[in-house]
């Protein structure tokens, strides 16, 4: 019998995974637990993929990814993010943003280093740090700050071992969008303490109420100490295509490419050809964002009318991180009750770290009808109590 690595064994499965099995056992579940768009991939991107298959564009690409795609990404970064990146040496196309995240940590960390992780956080941040034999150090994002991480809270956690800070804005699971001032504060800390900022900007297109997304890598003296990771999954309904990218200085990208070269070779070629059309697909993104906005308003209003639940209005992504502390229940207990008694699936907040205790993540990347049905079911359940 093969013995598995003790270190890997000790890393827990994602809390979402655990809950997933419960949900799968039930029929007639209305799910607000999904973290992916329910729109189809934009037509120009699909057409490009079909054409790529027909043209036999199915071989490996350069380890860095198709140069044409990197050039388009470079133009986009200049235009939309204010980041100037050399397409030849400072951009790496990856198999999903998840891979970019893993590579970023592995490229900059040595065993024993610490990474500051604002919590509640995306489920992969901590495990990726563990896989790199390092220690994630949580910093709470608090509801009174609308879940925006505060630079002074980060500074408290900086030690001699701190190597990097990871920032996810717009944020999964809270929907918060960091303000320019807060990002400037984080940049200042990074410069002062010689830290790297890993900036996860996957949800950059999904912002509402006139909120603006800023890229910390565009700030003064930050280009060389930022690893910007992004992808097409959320903005272009592109999840299953598995395509992302990382942007940083030449040395970091080279190191990331080295790992990528030996473990992944290159990102899926057909997906890369599809992604070449991302700059023609902006109008699809725009109409998606308009629809998400309508759903967001509907869900926030509906949740706030249910006794025991309160939710601040999120400014980005497609999640509402609702406070359920008044029910007196723990996150998991609440989510389980919701599932078993009302047939509504949502993700318990503690899946995103201990700071998520007392909250539940509801996604609005589902139809308005689904949102209304879920709200109705939750209302009925809560009014019985």
């Amino acid at each position: 019998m093969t013995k598995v690595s003790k270190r890997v064994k000790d890393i827990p499965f994602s809390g979402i995974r655990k809950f997933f099995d419960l949900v799968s056992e039930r029929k007639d579940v209305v799910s607000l637990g999904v973290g992916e768009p329910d729109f189809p991939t934009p037509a120009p991107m699909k057409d490009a993929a079909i054409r790529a298959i027909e043209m036999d564009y199915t071989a490996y690409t350069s380890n860095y990814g198709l140069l044409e795609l990197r050039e388009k990404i470079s133009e986009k970064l200049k235009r939309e993010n204010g980041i100037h990146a050399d397409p030849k040496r400072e951009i790496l196309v990856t198999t999903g943003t998840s891979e970019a995240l893993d590579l970023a940590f592995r490229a900059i960390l040595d065993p024993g280093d610490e990474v500051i992780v604002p919590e509640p956080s995306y489920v992969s941040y901590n495990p990726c740090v563990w896989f790199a034999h390092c220690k994630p150090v949580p910093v709470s994002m608090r509801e009174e700050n609308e879940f925006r991480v505060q630079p002074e809270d980060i500074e408290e956690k900086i030690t001699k071992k701190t190597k990097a800070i990871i920032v996810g804005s717009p944020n999964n699971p809270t929907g918060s969008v960091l303000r320019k001032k807060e990002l400037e504060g984080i940049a200042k800390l990074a410069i002062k303490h010689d830290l790297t900022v890993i900036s996860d900007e996957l949800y950059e297109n999904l912002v509402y109420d006139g909120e603006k997304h800023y890229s910390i890598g565009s700030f003064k003296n930050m280009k060389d100490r930022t690893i910007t990771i992004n992808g097409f999954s959320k903005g272009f309904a592109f999840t299953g295509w598995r395509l992302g990218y990382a942007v940083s200085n030449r040395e970091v990208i080279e190191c990331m490419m080295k790992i990528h070269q030996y473990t992944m070779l290159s990102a899926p070629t057909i997906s890369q050809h599809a992604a070449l059309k991302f700059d023609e697909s902006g109008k699809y993104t725009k109409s998606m964002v308009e629809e998400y906005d309508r759903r967001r308003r509907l869900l926030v209003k509906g949740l706030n009318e249910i006794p025991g639940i309160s939710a601040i209005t999120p400014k980005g992504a497609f999640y509402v991180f609702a406070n359920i502390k008044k029910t007196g229940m723990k996150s998991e207990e609440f989510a389980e009750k919701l599932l078993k008694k009302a047939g509504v699936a949502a993700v318990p907040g503690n899946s995103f770290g201990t700071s998520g205790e007392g909250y539940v993540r509801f996604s609005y990347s589902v139809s308005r009808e689904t949102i209304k049905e879920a709200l109705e079911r939750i209302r009925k359940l809560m009014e019985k109590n």
Partner: protein
Amino acid sequence: MKDDSKLLELLEEDGRASAKELASMLGLKEKEVDEKIKDLKKKSVIRGFKAVVDWRKASVKKVMAVIQVKVIPQAKDGFAKVCLDLSKDRRVLDAFVATGEYDLLLFVEANTLEEISDFVTERLATRKEVTGTNTHIILSQFKRDGKLFADAAAGRLPLSP
């Protein structure tokens, strides 16, 4: 009226959306939405509300046909008169004056094939302006009034990170 286009789009998608829901999505007050809808109805911008029924799912047999109708060239509002007159038949769901080889386009729904046949032979063939018809019996429907009639959406995970 342009101000109301967002509201109208939402209602066109779901005529039963409550004023409260609509208000929250549009950032308006519930009362404002109520008043707007009342006004739009009064001005006949909103012609009505109805259910989109999948009769096959209800196990009720219905026959649908698209009928193209050729009419003797008419002066001025002649086509409109013929079209309006035919629209009065309860079996006619949609009626259009259109370009092309045929002049009118009718969507007809009935309980039996005979009723469709009756409509063609009695209502259309007997009119002296009508010079020809072309009837398409619908075999299956996939979308109607903006609603998909197919059930199988690609499977998404019920929960994902």
